């Protein structure tokens, strides 16, 4: 019974508080805007890290793998000789197609300087020489134009790369060093790493970069995700070769790790600092809310309302302000940044990659949750003060 009457009292006082909110619009507005700012900044910075992680994690499927030389930590530093490649392609765990044989693509990966459309400065784009199996290993579809012809100086360009750099329209010619390439098509790799790459025939690229019949990596599609262990064991145990086998997903997730960790650290520090700032704002707001209602609160206490419900009502008001602000900030982050396309550098191989900001539901929840925590602590001291007000002196106040 005691609890029910307490809750009833709290509800009455809260409703009373909220109805007088319009009178305190300015200071409450400041608290809401402050909270919105904190949440918007926190969520949008963390969405950068989410975006990079998602792009890297979506690259590859459970049944694809990458083979490099032992000791290499990225494609850039790997080198495979023809003998190695023959051994890899013979592995029975690799899926086979009737027309092209094993779904394994021995690839070359080189950097080329292109001019960024946004800044006019050069960036290191990735040029990948592939074999026909590559189209069946990656998530790949042509958007416009056609595939490059075997043995010809032709390039196809990933969707993001086409927007990122100057001079990559279908039909245009691109001079790289002394070689002239024709852009013949644009492809879509479904928001994964190859979207930022340029692809050509490995057989054409190798002599131009004096690679002979060596390659850097072999990408394979396995018969099933479970076949990976057998495939890996077979190649690492083979005394003829020194190879490193990774799932494609693991490989790219590892590449995203450094960058996304850094961004998460920076974002958290900014979010924490701004949060502390907003906490102070909430404290000021709630103090003045309590101060401006000193007489009302004292009157309620005189009428027999207990301290607990008064505390609760102040807390509820502060948390409502926080949730409104947090929700507003989350909405700003979501509508302003979700899907926003940007490019950054893949530090593992110093090449440019495109990604989209991703404001995930988890991030939105985190933002609003943080606002709630701030609201709770912001309201706590003013609430205690409201409870402790001596009724007699408070009533005497003007």
């Amino acid at each position, binding site marked *: 019974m005691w609890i029910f009457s307490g809750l009833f009292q709290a509800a009455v006082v809260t409703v009373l508080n909220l109805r007088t909110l319009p009178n305190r619009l*300015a200071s409450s507005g400041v608290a809401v805007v402050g909270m919105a700012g904190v949440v918007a900044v926190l969520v949008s910075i963390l969405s950068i890290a989410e975006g990079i992680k998602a792009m890297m994690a979506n690259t590859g499927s459970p049944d694809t793998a990458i083979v490099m030389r032992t000791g290499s930590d990225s494609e850039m530093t790997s080198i495979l000789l023809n003998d190695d490649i023959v051994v890899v392609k013979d592995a029975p765990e690799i899926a086979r197609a009737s027309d092209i044989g094993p779904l394994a693509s021995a690839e070359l990966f080189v950097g080329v*300087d292109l001019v*960024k459309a946004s800044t006019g400065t050069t960036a290191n784009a990735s040029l990948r020489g592939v074999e026909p199996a590559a189209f069946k290993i990656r998530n790949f579809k042509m958007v416009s134009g056609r595939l490059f012809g075997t043995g010809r100086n032709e390039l196809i360009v990933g969707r993001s790369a086409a927007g990122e750099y100057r001079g990559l329209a279908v039909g245009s010619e691109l001079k790289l060093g002394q070689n002239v390439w024709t852009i013949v098509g644009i492809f879509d790799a479904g928001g994964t790493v190859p979207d930022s790459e340029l692809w050509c025939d490995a057989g054409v690229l190798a002599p131009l970069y004096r690679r002979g019949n060596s390659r850097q990596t072999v990408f394979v599609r396995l018969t099933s995700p479970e076949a990976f262990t057998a495939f890996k064991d077979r190649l690492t145990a083979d005394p003829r070769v020194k190879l490193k086998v990774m799932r494609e997903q693991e490989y790219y997730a590892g590449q995203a790790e450094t*960058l996304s960790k*850094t961004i998460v650290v920076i974002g958290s520090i900014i979010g924490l600092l701004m949060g*502390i700032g907003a906490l102070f704002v909430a404290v000021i707001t709630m103090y003045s809310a309590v101060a401006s209602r000193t007489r009302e609160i004292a009157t309620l206490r005189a009428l027999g309302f207990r301290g607990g419900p008064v505390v609760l009502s102040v807390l509820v008001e502060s948390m409502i302000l926080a949730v409104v602000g947090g929700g507003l900030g989350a909405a700003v982050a979501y509508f302003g940044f979700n899907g926003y396309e940007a490019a950054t550098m893949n530090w593992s191989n110093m090449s440019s990659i495109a990604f989209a900001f991703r404001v995930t539901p988890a991030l939105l929840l985190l933002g609003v949750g943080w606002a709630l925590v701030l609201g709770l602590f912001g309201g706590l001291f003013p609430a205690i003060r409201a409870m402790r007000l001596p009724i007699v002196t408070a009533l005497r106040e003007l």
Partner: protein
Amino acid sequence: MKYLPLLWRTLFRRKVRTIFTLLAVLVAFTLFGFLAAIGAAFSMGVELAGNERLVMIHKVSLIQLLPESYLERIRATPGVVDACSHTFFGGIYQDPKNFFMQIPVDPECMLRMYPEFAMPEEQKKAWIADRQGAIVGRQTAAKFGWKVGDRIPLQATIWRKQDNSQNWEFNLDGIYSGTEQGTDETQFFFHYKYFDESRQFAQGNVGWYVVRIANASQAPQIAAALDEQFANSPAETKTTTEKAFVQAFANQVGNIALIVRSIIAMAFFIILLVTANTMAESVRERTSELAVLKTLGFSDGLVLLLVLAESCTIAGVGGLLGLGLAAFVVPGIPTGNLLQDLYVPKGSFGVGVALVVGLGVVSGIFPALRAMRLRIVDALRRV
């Protein structure tokens, strides 16, 4: 001066509000310092990069190699004072996550080229004389606890030795530190001769050249003349100033500077709102007190100044403490291996102080004007 007690009294009229406003301002300026440091780290020392140094890379990409034979031809080009070759080694120390740049160089040439890397004379001599010697920046040495005299093993990722082993070992002969704030203190340099003789392939090829020129204003012409020399050769070149080179590299990381600036602007706008609101409230509460002051003979201008002084005190104390806190705390924030150690750039303190003053004036000006225009009769009539 005689108004100080009055100012003191009004500030502490509502102690809690003043203290929390002060704290909010303090946090805002700590954030400002932190963001300035992040901005500096992401710009990768572009402010420090010299215009009198050029970087020559392979025209297709930084990753392609250039012949060693270019060195003498570069040095013979009019306007060029000096040139050195650099190569990306890309070795791993214990764990791939421990990334830092390792570059084989000609020691004497490198020390001439980078006077900003300071090191005791005897360490320089020891390094030049030691074929397997290496030097490293203070920051990397501190991170791994290296001391002069240590033997440093690196695992090659690209450059295997002739016996096909991946293990390279170096003697640490010196630790350099930057003469200027923000100088890159992470790099590891060792003898090119040792590198070239021991590597399995690509002998006689280097990664890029750093070229010092006599006159920075001649940079475009000299860069063009250098590239012209090697045009139509198997290894064509592209030469830019070190500044443009670093800028392009930083741009690739993303337009972090823009994001950082928008966050600063946002945080500031919010803090401005808060202080302005506090000031406005404080003046509104004191309407009758201000009227009494005026009745006692305080001039309109004096009342304006008193209110402004109040807001500037809050901004000044909070802001300067915040900047100080940032300078103290920021260098200790861990950044992982991606960025250099953080520091608050000296120039940012100037900007910070300007912002402190701006915040104080802007947040106080409207309540102050209101207080100044207050008519005694109206104000006293209100209860």
